[in-house]
């Protein structure tokens, strides 16, 4: 049963990660071609990516509700960050959220300090960050590093609503008789089948209990009746 749940969770993420890896490699290719001609990364490169981003968002079919490419600090000289970001509206239309010069857009937190940027920068590995509160949404953010000639330049990232992720694991999760949780590397509950261990609650002990999922330190925990 554990395997069933793990498989559902991993395949939900793998679908998104697949698109992010593709976006990352497409952008890397674009930049490598440019640097062969001695030109630097510019905002227009982000614009060039837009058709690919639209296709990726369409293919994900609601598995992620927004995605894009976010460049790290000073990759385009003098900018804190630059991004090309698309969002899926409730009516199914795709909205552009493209410009780095309007800092009230997107995340309230500083982009370059956000964990979905700092962790891939540090480890050069894909990450799942969250769940976390982003103003009026409860989110998971998946990010894949973009590395060009051994330099980290930013991430290809996607936001997944926790509700949507929960839906993709609801069936295997509902089949557990015992209280069952998926927790992240901080010991925070991501999904659970019981209100006594609700989503968002955190417990140091969860960091070592249960079985690891080989996914960013996430674990599946079955709470025995004795607990």
């Amino acid at each position, binding site marked *: 049963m554990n395997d069933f749940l793990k498989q559902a969770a991993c395949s939900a993420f793998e679908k998104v990660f697949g698109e992010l890896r593709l976006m990352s490699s497409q952008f890397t290719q674009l930049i490598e071609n440019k640097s062969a001609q001695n030109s630097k990364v510019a905002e227009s490169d982000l614009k060039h990516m837009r058709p690919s981003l639209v296709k990726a968002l369409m293919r994900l079919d609601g598995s992620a*509700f927004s995605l894009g490419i976010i460049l790290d600090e000073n990759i385009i000289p003098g900018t804190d960050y630059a991004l090309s970001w698309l969002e899926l509206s409730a009516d199914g239309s795709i909205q552009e959220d493209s410009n780095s010069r309007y800092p009230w857009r997107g995340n309230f937190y500083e982009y370059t300090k956000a964990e979905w940027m700092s962790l891939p920068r540090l480890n050069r590995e894909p990450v799942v960050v969250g769940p976390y509160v982003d103003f009026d*949404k409860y989110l998971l953010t998946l990010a894949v590093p973009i590395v060009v000639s051994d330099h980290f330049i930013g991430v290809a990232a996607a936001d997944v609503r926790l509700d949507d992720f929960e839906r993709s694991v609801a069936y295997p999760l509902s089949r557990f008789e015992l209280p069952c949780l998926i927790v992240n590397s901080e010991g925070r509950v991501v999904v659970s089948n019981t209100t006594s261990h609700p989503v968002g609650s955190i417990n140091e002990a969860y960091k070592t209990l249960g079985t690891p999922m080989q996914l960013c330190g996430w674990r599946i925990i079955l709470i025995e009746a004795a607990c």
Partner: protein
Amino acid sequence: MALGSDLPQGVTMFSLRPQHLTGVSSVVTRLRTAIDLGFFEDGEMLPKEAVLSKELHVTAFTLREALAELRLEGLVDTKPGRGGGTFVQRTSRMAHDKAEIRLKDLSATALRDLSDWKAMLLGEAAELAASRASPSNIARLEEYCNRVLSATSAIAACRAHARFDIELAAAAQSVRLSSAALHTYEEYSWLLALAHEDQGYTEECAQTLAAVTKMVGQRLVHEAGTLARDRTRISFESLAKKRLSLIASRSHQQALRGHTVE
């Protein structure tokens, strides 16, 4: 979470109340909040009107009306010609005077009610955060707390304070509390900025935030909640005094004027 999934745009802080997003007053509120929360710096040029109206999902006409109102408030100034545009002027005397007039006109009940509401929000957020904050949440709380301490202006202190409150609600893992904290600032950032003009108030707040952060870090659920609740109420003392002295000085002036007429 229900709030988020109902949004037609699902985009940003500006999308929090999509049902009200078409009127001039909502554009004024959203731009004012963006300025007050530090998304626009003092002296920064706003995006071109065409871009801004698209971003805000309103017509050019509505945007122009809203900008005119913000100009009257002294929050922005428009310079014509080449290199011209609409510039943020947050520190102007006009904004301060306007805030004082609004505080004077605020009823004692409304002020007390606001202090109760903020105390409840922060108390609940602190309690939940104490049981749910991760080390990275706490690191951010510490950072915003330090920004309040090291703020060099009232507006910078107010911004950092606002960010702290919203981060505390985020650390509590509550979408509702985080939205509520933001809405409170949408409505009352002018008032909180006025309070922060008093350096003593800013220092007192910074101490409270540091103490709350410490208790959240130590997972002292009850203590964090009680402290946040009590100190928030106390922090309104200076605003209450200010309000009363504004009313008093106005009626004193009127009395003086009355004498000269006689």
